[in-house]
């Protein structure tokens, strides 16, 4: 299995602030990777840079060998990367079904959905995340957990090879988190490469076999969770200098 995502020397400056600093890593096809770091470490910025919602100040991003640095978001989606957002967003005046139909109508989504028709296909995606009974309802009245599932359903509509999940557990109850974990595991088993950020470390560290850690925009560590969890710099970043917590 080859490298699916290659990020080299990725840097993003906002005026005087360097949000991402010379960040490099690789993800192989079929991997299941977490991205961790304290608040403000730059995780969402990295996602925004990969998915095209921000342009890097310097550095390169390659997906499946194709240089996607600075490409427009919809083009990147049509190459096979889909993402969810930290702050839940939806097409608020459309039904859930229509919400998922839209990505199925993207260039990439159409390749798959046209075989059975966009509605059928979107229905089956909603079924796979457990939302099909709410297909005719608009998102406004749904609980938070369902909205997170909807985001994943929408991402799936574009038939992605790489799925970027930005803080998917944020704001979920215990039960909702468990359901989400099952869903993510299943997606991974189906062959989707998963790259997710997390702030609630407990779930993340037991879920993923590999974790990349960052702090203040810089790369800190990359490896199995147990190893990374013992990384001194990371511990300091999360907990502050050791003495106070002795």
């Amino acid at each position, binding site marked *: 299995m080859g490298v699916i995502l290659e990020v080299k020397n990725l840097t993003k400056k906002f005026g005087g602030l360097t949000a991402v600093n010379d960040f490099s890593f690789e993800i192989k096809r079929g991997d299941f990777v977490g991205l961790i770091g304290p608040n403000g470490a730059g995780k969402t910025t990295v996602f925004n840079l990969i*998915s095209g*919602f921000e342009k890097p100040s310097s550095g390169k991003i390659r997906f499946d060998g194709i240089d996607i640095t600075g490409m427009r978001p919809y083009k990147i989606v049509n190459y096979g990367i889909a993402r969810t*957002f930290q702050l839940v967003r939806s*097409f608020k005046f459309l039904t859930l079904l*229509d919400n998922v139909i839209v*990505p199925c*109508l993207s260039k990439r989504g159409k390749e798959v959905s046209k075989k059975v028709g966009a509605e059928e296909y979107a229905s089956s995606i909603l079924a796979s995340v457990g939302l099909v009974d709410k297909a005719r309802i608009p998102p406004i009245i749904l609980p938070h957990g369902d909205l997170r599932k909807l985001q994943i359903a929408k991402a799936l*509509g574009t038939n992605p090879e790489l799925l970027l999940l930005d803080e998917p557990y944020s704001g979920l109850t215990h039960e909702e988190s468990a359901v989400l974990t099952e869903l993510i595991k299943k997606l991974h088993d189906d062959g989707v490469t998963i790259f997710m950020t997390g702030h609630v470390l407990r779930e993340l560290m037991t879920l993923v076999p590999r974790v990349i850690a960052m702090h203040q925009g810089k790369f800190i560590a990359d490896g199995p969770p147990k190893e990374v969890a013992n990384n001194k710099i990371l511990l300091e970043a999360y907990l502050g200098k050791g003495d106070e917590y002795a």
Partner: protein
Amino acid sequence: MKKGLVKEKIRNIPTYLKSWAKTFSGSLTVFLLIILTLFPFLSQNESFINYFLRHFTLAMIFSIFAASWDFLTGISGQISFGHAIFFGIAGYLCAYLIAFQGFPIWLAIPAGALGAVGFGLIIGIPCLRLRGPYLALGTLAFSLILLKLFLLGSLSNILFGSEGISYNTGPYPLTRLSSNALIEYFIVFITLIISFIIIFQIVKSKFGTILKSIRDDETGADASGINTTRYKVYAFMISSFFAGIAGCFYALYNTSVNPVGNFGTVISFFAILMASLGGLTTISGSSLGAFFFIFLEYILIEMGVDAYVQLIFAIILILVVRFAEHGILRPIIEHLKDFWDVLLGR
């Protein structure tokens, strides 16, 4: 495979129409259409009918215009405050072609509408970067500039200045829809029905769903792999086409065009006003809004307060936006619906 699907769809139309007519909005629409069709024949008094016919025709012209605005703003989420641009350009082009190039009407109207589409592109493309209030002001600024350009004395040899073009000479096939107000009425009526059916079908289709998704969350649509730029341009083109049709009819209705009457801010205001009354997201509401305001204007003029007409309209718009963001006609129709259900014992 595709051909068979289309044939099947066409064969399904009668059943589809029957079930649609049974729904509340369907039967209401059919009812209104029947009234509009029979109305001209209701009275023996020719001049009385003709007088009102012209008002109905005007209301139908503005229905198309308001619907075109609603398509762009309420369905596609692109706020346009300069819709007069498309209306005016089409009217001017149509008038020019008829008065100076000897075009027959059936050629001048599409030409005018296509001219409006051309402007839809010219305006649409720089405006693609603008969202929300920026877009509103950008389109407003464009329409003001166009108004000024047409009023410029120095350009009046190309653009006809503040006098505009007037052409009430010549027999009817050349200069107006008809010498007969009745035929004019039906030509506009049929165009109205066809336009609304087309717009409706577009809105209901998957294409329409994509436009609505751009309206609801443009970033999300982008993240769903949709080329939002392309669809926004399409929305501008479709909207400007129908605005252009209305603009051509208006020019023919008046047999003249002039800068203030065809490009004025008040025209853009009317589109917004009429569509908002009926509810921003309902296309049919635009038509009800158009009829409401055309007839309100008539009543106010009859009452002798014509100077106050637009002030009153502006206040109504303020009230509608303030208190009834989904238009006031919706709630009224909802109440009617409940009444209807009670009548039918449901």
